[in-house]
């Protein structure tokens, strides 16, 4: 597949993919975009092995989620950061409003276990079905429902 053809395929998917990773990364858009680009390049390299057994978007989200998990597993560099946590990084006034608006939500989501957090984000932010979420997270549909239910309870305690 040529890069142009692949770019055409991902043009409609990249926004929701970046939003999913943005939420996973606690609002750190630079990190989210880096992981998104890494995921898309990995998808391009593996595009020959895409058999069409699942939706293209589901396949992309699965690769992106695996990239995010790989990133989380990497050991943190031994540096003492003088910057604020990702959820508090502010670059301009507009972004400040946006960041403060989502700060509470990101902090609440950050406290959830990984699969619970991902299931909530995919269901509520990307409007994906239970079946698609199960394919992305590679867990049974019943487990997705369980994660959504538990995640909702956790978030209700923290947000409302």
């Amino acid at each position: 597949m040529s890069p142009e053809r692949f770019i055409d395929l991902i043009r409609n998917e990249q926004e929701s993919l970046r939003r999913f990773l943005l939420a996973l990364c606690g609002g750190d858009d630079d990190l989210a975009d880096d992981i998104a680009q890494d995921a898309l390049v990995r998808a391009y390299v593996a595009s020959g092995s895409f058999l069409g057994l699942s939706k293209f978007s589901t396949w992309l989200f699965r690769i992106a989620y695996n990239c995010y998990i790989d990133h989380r597993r990497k050991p943190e560099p031994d540096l003492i950061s003088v910057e604020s946590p990702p959820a508090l990084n502010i670059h301009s006034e507009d972004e400040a409003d946006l960041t403060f608006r989502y700060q509470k939500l990101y902090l609440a989501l950050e406290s959830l276990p990984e699969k619970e957090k991902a299931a909530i984000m995919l269901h509520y932010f990307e409007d994906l079905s239970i079946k698609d979420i199960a394919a992305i997270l590679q867990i049974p549909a019943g487990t997705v429902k369980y994660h959504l239910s538990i995640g909702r309870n956790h978030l209700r305690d923290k947000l409302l």
Partner: protein
Amino acid sequence: MKENDIDSYLRANRPQIKDNPTFLLEVEQKMRAVDGIKKEVDRQRKRGRLTMTVVFVAGIILGAIALALALAFPTEPKLTDVSLLSQLKDYFEAHAEALLVSVAFGASFISIALGTRKESL
């Protein structure tokens, strides 16, 4: 609290991504870089395969020439070095264990070295 409260809260607070017009351009550049590396690796592989084929064919041709020469100009084998052969045989019989252990060690070392060798780009 109602069940729907958290649902509507989450749906109303869907994160908004920052506008990044160069995002897809950067992805395309990275994909082209990956393509370049893939092409180079393929080129190296093809060159390796060609070298193997040339060496194989050259070996067969040289072997055939050597056989043809041996058949065209036959010579009587010399039987004068019997003493040297018997010395070698005696030496092997005396040190058979040490020699076989050395051969086994060498074979193990080579197989481990080949098994752990990484392909370099």
